[in-house]
């Protein structure tokens, strides 16, 4: 790790001011950033911790939606959302290990947009809204490919609002080594239709499987997707699975998520 300066502002405004420096990076849990810094693969001059900003923390359940502060840890979400949105809580409770869940935050995960992360699938399938210090971004417009998001320079996530579906489930198939998603599927059934988001599989990061959504909106059962197939083109391929395998897995997991959602 190289030397760096560390600041821990207590307001969003102070954080944005600190991040105006080109060499500054936000820190919101650091479960990706810190390991890369330790390996000297990343060398910010200043780390701006967002964890001192109380306004970014906590869970609010109101009516048909759950709002989660960006600096809320996975462990907190797993605990406090369990009643209002069990599928989301279960997802948060199965990210990484206890150490990761007690440091990592939802804002950090969504800002990083790792193509194998869990939260992007929940946000996209739920039709969540990513709220920043500047604007509100619908999930459909937020994810722009592997490690790419709609966030601009100096823009930080403040909270994420999830509409609560009638039924939902997330099924993750773990990559054997990292235990990230080799493929993960979040299915959410709303009055207006079903949304299906797939993480871990595509070279473009999280994506919606519209064909499955259509089929499931008409018939919310695993059988509805059994005849469908995902194109292997554009799927990731590595030591742990070919593109064909990931495409197949995503389909299998979609059916299982539907069954789990009940």
């Amino acid at each position, binding site marked *: *790790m190289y030397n760096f300066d560390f600041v821990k502002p207590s307001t969003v405004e102070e954080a944005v001011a600190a991040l105006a420096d080109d060499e500054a990076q936000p820190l919101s849990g650091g479960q990706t950033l810190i390991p890369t810094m330790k*390996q*000297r693969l990343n060398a910010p001059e200043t780390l701006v911790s967002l964890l001192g900003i109380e306004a970014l923390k906590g869970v609010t359940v109101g009516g048909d939606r759950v709002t989660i502060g960006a600096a809320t840890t996975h462990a907190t979400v797993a605990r406090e959302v369990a009643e209002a949105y069990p599928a989301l809580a279960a997802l948060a409770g199965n990210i990484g290990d206890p150490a990761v869940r007690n440091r990592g935050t939802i804002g950090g995960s969504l800002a990083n947009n790792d193509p194998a992360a869990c939260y992007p699938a929940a946000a996209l399938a739920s039709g969540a809204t990513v709220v920043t210090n500047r604007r509100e971004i619908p999930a459909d417009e937020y994810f722009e490919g592997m490690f790419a998001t709609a966030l601009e320079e100096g823009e930080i996530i403040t909270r994420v609002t999830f509409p609560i579906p009638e039924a939902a489930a997330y099924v993750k*198939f773990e990559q*054997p*080594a*990292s235990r990230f998603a*080799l493929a993960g599927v979040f299915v959410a059934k709303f009055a207006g239709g079903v949304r299906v988001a797939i993480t871990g599989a595509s070279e473009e990061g999280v994506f919606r499987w519209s064909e499955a959504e259509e089929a499931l909106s008409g018939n919310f059962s695993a059988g509805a997707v059994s005849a469908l197939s995902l194109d292997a083109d554009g799927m990731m391929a*590595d*030591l*742990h*699975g*070919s593109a064909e*395998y990931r495409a*197949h*897995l995503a389909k*299998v997991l979609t059916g299982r998520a539907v069954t789990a959602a009940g």
Partner: protein
Amino acid sequence: MPKDGIGASVKRREDLRFLTGTGRYTDDINLRGQAHVHFLRADVAHATLNAVDTSAAAEMPGVLRIFTAKDFEGVGGLPCGWQVTDKHGQPMQEPKHPILAEGKIRHVGEIVAAVVAETLEQARDAAEAIELDTEDLPAVIDMKQAVAEGAPKVHDELTSNLCYDWGFVEENKAAVEEAFANAAHVTTLELVNNRLVANPMEPRVAIGDYALHDDSSTLYTTSQNPHVIRLLMGAFVLGIPEHKLRVVAPDVGGGFGTKIFHYAEEAFCTFAAKQLRRPVKWTSTRSEAFISDAHGRDHVTKIQLALDADNNFTALRTDTYANMGAYLSTFAPSVPTWLHGTLMAGNYRTPLIYVNVKAVFTNTVPVDAYRGAGRPEATFQLERVVDKAARELGVDPAELRRQNFIRKDQFPYATPVAVEYDTGDYEATLDKAMQMAGYAGFETRRAASAAKGKLRGIGLSHYIEACGIAPSNLVGQLGARAGLYESATVRVNATGGLVVMTGSHSHGQGHETSFPQVVADMIGISPDQVEIVHGDTANTPMGMGTYGSRSIAVGGSAMVRATEKIIAKAKKIAAHLMEASEADIELKDGAFSVAGTDKSVAWGDVTLAAYVPHNYPLDDIEPGLEETAFYDPANFTYPSGCYICEVEVDPDTGRVEVQSFAAADDFGNVINPMIVEGQVQGGVGQGIGQALLENCVYDADGQLLSASYMDYAMPRASDLPMIDVDHSCQTPCTHNPLGVKGCGEAGAIGSPPALVNAVIDALQRDGKSVSHIDMPLSPARVWAAMNA
């Protein structure tokens, strides 16, 4: 059941410090004034190394000195401890293994320069300012391509990348060919024994220290065999006589073989400490461990089994390419040859066997012994091909094995591959494992799995290993450049307590608990009165260390011999004290008595007399009570056993879940059953790791793709079933005093084929024509095989 002697499950006394974080590992040692070294390691697999410019780096803050290969002119290379002779009678090709890369880079991770600085961060900063003048060369990664005509050479001074082409037993080759020509059935299997990274929990550490006042050097290191390191490094690398060199291996957090070998970092720290007159410390990062610890396995094999019309095995032949990596690690050449070819008979009466092994240099990290070392590779191919034969012939795999077993009345049994098994009862462990596994009730469980949409399979393997390594005169003939005896000094204190100084080394095996059980049992005192000292060349007799499941069989035997000497002398003293004839003295429950009388003296009275010899036969015997023994075994020991594994395969994802695992081992006599069970369970865990998860993968350019835990899958508790262990089938070893065989590697040897056989069984029962899947049986691989 004995309370705390031989055969008792005494709780491990060392666990108090390990579980409370008070163990003292090498990294816990910090010497006054120590400097830190960071090694600049090659990030390409194969390149010329034209120049290393350290001028800018040397000016960086805190830098004490930067070392390159030039500083090691006149210093030897890392020695190889075993010379294999090829099938033409020629010695293997043995290139120099320099401490720092000389003129050429041969694998990712090879040390190019070493920066010693006041702090580790300063050393790392300075290393980034070193300029390398290199020219990339095509990497040699695939073994078959490496030995093809015109392949680039890893070592320009060698004739090719072929280290040796070994044939065993060469004289049998023609007869084996003839048997195959006459066979009623031939089963052929091509397979890969996947390359592994050992990944002990504690990474390697080395601290060099130099004392000007007596011109002596000390190396603190994470080693399984400190005396071996002292000998190799002192005599062959740095030219330090043994009386001026001390090697200390304190608590070591797992070795699994990869801490046997003498590594460049150890020699570097010892050398640099003397140059700088400062202690020099290195602690491997996990990332460094992946590219600098010796790897394991990495064989590519074609095996064929010939059977007659009655399903008797008539011949076996096997051709293996064994990866040596870029250099010969300490015992690398012996692993695919003498620790592998000699086990190809397995548990069977196969009369004719021919083993060919081509050892190959590639631009990869050196490969050497890893838990089992050659024996897992032998067992895997043999137990896979036997299983495949049974399936091809439509017979029960258990019964085909039973039919071909060496029968218990045939011991001692000389195999066609040069070893003689002293004892065994293979049907006993087969029957025991089948009973433990509920073999007969499998169909019910299969139906239950099928109802859940899962494919269930059952697989078994029967292993034999050669442990208790090893008879020195025999291994000397086979090319070992070391003896493989073990030593013990038993020091009895005046008040009756004992200290046993052993050449064995404990890095998880529990010697501090099990060794005292033996000594205490012999004398009839509490194990609490016995302390074990190991791991420091300054206070233990010259010993060869711990590997090859040798410690209780060889080190324990040395301890027995030394204790016998102690008892013999103590009886003389007791006879004097009781004015009786020495021949009439009996030792029982810690007291000496005169046979047929009520005369008795306690153990403590005798030990006190030995050190306060006021009433003592000084004309006949010396005062004091301390004895040393060196024990050189007459033969290997041959633990064996049967492992049965049941799996469920998810047909939609290819995911394999191990449902149950039964291990019936014959370890001969057992000193501490609890420790033995732990050793087996740990070994099975590693074997399941190899079979399901672990895979060390290079790309064609020699970059390690599985270079961290993000891509190298270690087994976790959730991947393992409850492992049912039994060691009640005991045919004691006939040639060591304890009748023990050793248990450290069995689990890792026997488990991979059982698991793979179970998966193949599950798929074939489902009608899939899958006859083999290479390890690890990852979900993607199993799914691909099912859908091929």
